[in-house]
C-alpha cells in the first residue's frame, strides 16, 4: 500500500516538472532574453534554471498558481542577471535598476510600490522570504549566493524600504 502511495506521489511530481517545463519555458526564455539579448545565452539560462527548479520541485505548489509563476520567473531572471554580470560587469547597476523599474502597480500598498522599485536581487530575496516562505539558507541555494550574502541582502533591502517609506512620509 505504502509503495503504491509513494509511486503515485512520484508520478505526480514527474508530471508537475514536465507541466512546468511545457507551460513556462517560453516565458522563461522571454524573461532571459529581455535581460541578455542573446538567444544562446537565454537558452542556457533557461536550462540552468530548470535544473534549479528540478532540485526544488517538491516545494513547488500548483503549476498554474501565481506563486509558481513568480518563483520560476525569480529564478530565471536572477540567473540571467548573473550571466549578464559576468559578461558585462560595468553595466550591472544600470541593468538592475532598469529591470526593477519596469513593473506597473496601481494598488495603494506603499510598501509594495517600494518593493517593486528595489533592484532585482533585493526584490527577489524579499519575495522568496515573505511570499514564498523560504529560509535564508534556501534562498541562498536558489539564487546561488552564500547564506551570509542572502542575509545581508535581506537586511539591506529592508533598510532601503524603511528609508523609502520614511521619505514618502508613510512611516
Amino acid at each position, binding site marked *: 500500500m505504502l509503495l503504491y502511495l*509513494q509511486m503515485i506521489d512520484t508520478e505526480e511530481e514527474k508530471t508537475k516538472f514536465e507541466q512546468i517545463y511545457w507551460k513556462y519555458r517560453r516565458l522563461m526564455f*522571454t524573461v532571459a532574453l529581455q535581460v541578455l539579448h542573446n538567444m544562446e545565452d537565454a*537558452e542556457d539560462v533557461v536550462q540552468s534554471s530548470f535544473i534549479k527548479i528540478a532540485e526544488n520541485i517538491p516545494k513547488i505548489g500548483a503549476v498554474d498558481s501565481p506563486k509558481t509563476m513568480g518563483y520560476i520567473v525569480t529564478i530565471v531572471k536572477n540567473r540571467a542577471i548573473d550571466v549578464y554580470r559576468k559578461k558585462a560587469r560595468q553595466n550591472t547597476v544600470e541593468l538592475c535598476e532598469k529591470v526593477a523599474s519596469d513593473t506597473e502597480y496601481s494598488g495603494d500598498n506603499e510598501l509594495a510600490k517600494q518593493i517593486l522599485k528595489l533592484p532585482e536581487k533585493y526584490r527577489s530575496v524579499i519575495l522568496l522570504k*515573505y511570499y514564498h516562505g523560504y529560509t535564508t539558507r534556501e534562498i541562498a541555494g536558489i539564487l546561488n549566493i552564500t547564506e551570509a550574502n542572502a542575509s545581508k541582502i535581506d537586511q539591506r533591502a529592508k533598510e532601503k524600504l524603511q528609508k523609502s517609506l520614511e521619505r514618502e512620509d508613510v*512611516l
Partner: protein
Amino acid sequence: MITDEMLYEAAKEVNQALVRQWEELPWEEHVFSKSFERKMRRLIHRTKYQLLYRILKQAACLVLVLLLGCASVLTVHADSREAVIDWIQRMMYYRDAGYLVEQVEDIHPCFVLDDIPAGYEEAKEQYLKTVKSKNMDEKAFELESMRYLASLDDMNSGIRRKYAFQQILDLEVARIDGEICLINEEQLVEGKITSIGGAAIDQIWAVVEQIFPVSNQSSAVFFAPYLRFDDILRLAGVETENNVITVSWENESEQQSADFSLLPYEDYKKLHAAPRSDMISYKRMDAVFYLKTDYLDLNRDLDDVCTALSAAIAQGCTDVIIDVCGDSGGDSNAYLELLKTMDMQAASYTVYSRLLGSGKCRMEEDNRIVQTNSALRLMVLSDEHTSGSAANFCVLVKDSGLGQLVGRPSSLSPSSYGYGPSFTLPNTGLEGVISSKYWQRPDADADPDSLEMDVTVPYGEDILFYALELLQNRN
C-alpha cells in the same frame, strides 16, 4: 518600522503585479535548439529517477523502522514477513532498473544521433512497469534487463550474465530463409521445426527476439541457436522438468518428431567442442593464395603470412582468398596490414563517439584514400559467425571496391555501435556494457543494417568450394 506582517502583505501584492505583467508580455515564439531540447529531455528523465530514488530511500527507511517496530509480528507471521521482503526486493530491483535506464540514455550514441530504435520507448516502459509491479528473483530481473537492453538493437550492449544458462537442448538448429530448421550431423537440413515441447516455434522465436538484439537477418541467424537454452524454452512455456523434450518438424509436408535431451551446458560444450584450429594459416594453390583466419593480431604469425603473401604475389599469384568465416575478430590494424601487403588501402569508418555526460557526439574521420590493385583479384569469404574486426574488414573491402564478398553476411551490422564503458548495478551488482561509439560504414549511402554479398552461398554449402568454383569459371 516595517513589520513582517506588512512585508507578507506587500510581497503578495508585488507578486500579483509581476504576474499580471508577465502574463501580458508577448512570450517569444522561440524554436529551441536541438541541443536545448536534448538537454531538457535528459533533465526530465533524471528528475524522474532522482525523485524516485529519494522517495524509495525514504520508503526503505520507513520500512526499516516498521520492521524493527513490528519485529515480533514478523517473526510470528511468515506471510507478513514474506510480503515485506518481497516489497524490499521489488524496490531494490526498481532502483537498479532506473539506474540502468539512466546509464543507457546517458551513454548510448543512438539518443543523440536520432537513431532510437522504434521499440525502445515501449520496452523501457514495460521494463520499469514489470520490475515495479512483479515479484521476481534476481535471475528473472536479469532476464527483464536483457529484454530491455535488446530493444537497443545493439549486439555490443548487454548484460554479462550472472546466471548463465544452465541447460541446452541437444540438437542443432539454424535459421534459414526465415525458418528455424533442424540440422543433422552432416550439417544438412532435416526439416522446418514446428514445435518444441508442445510450444509453437514462432512462440519460442518471439522470446528470442525479446531477449536478444535481433535486429536484422544476420543477427537472427546468429541468435537462432539460442532458442535451445532452458530459460528461453521456459519463458516460451515449454516444460523442462524431465530433461527430455519432444521436437516436431516437417519435411516436404511430412510430419516427424523425436525426443531430445536437455543437457547441462558444460556437458554439451564438451560433447560438441569444435576442434582447435590455428589462428591463422595459409596455402598456395597455383595462382591462388588462400589464407584462413580465426583471429588476427599484429604479431609474428601475421608477419610470416604477409611475407609469404608478398612472395606469392611476386611469383605471379593473381588471386587471393581471405577466409574469415567464423573469425571472431582481433586487431583491425592486422587486417589493414594484409591489404597493405597487397598494395591496397581501404576507406575508413566514420566514428561517432558520445561525449559522456553530454548530449553530443564527436565525429572522427580518417579520410583514408582508397587504393585498389588491378593486378590482384581478392575474394573474402564470410559467414554469420564472422564478427568484430573481421566483420569490419568485410565491410571495408565491399565499400572500397577492393574485392568480392562470398558466403553469408556477418551477424554484425555494417554500421554498428560498440566500445563502451561497463556498468555495475548498485543493488544486484549485475554487470554489463553499453556502447558509446557508432561506426558508420565508409559508404554512408549503403544499407547500415545489412552487408550485401557479391555471391551468397546457401546455408550448409561449403563456402570455399563455391569460391574455388567461381575462380575456375572466371578463368
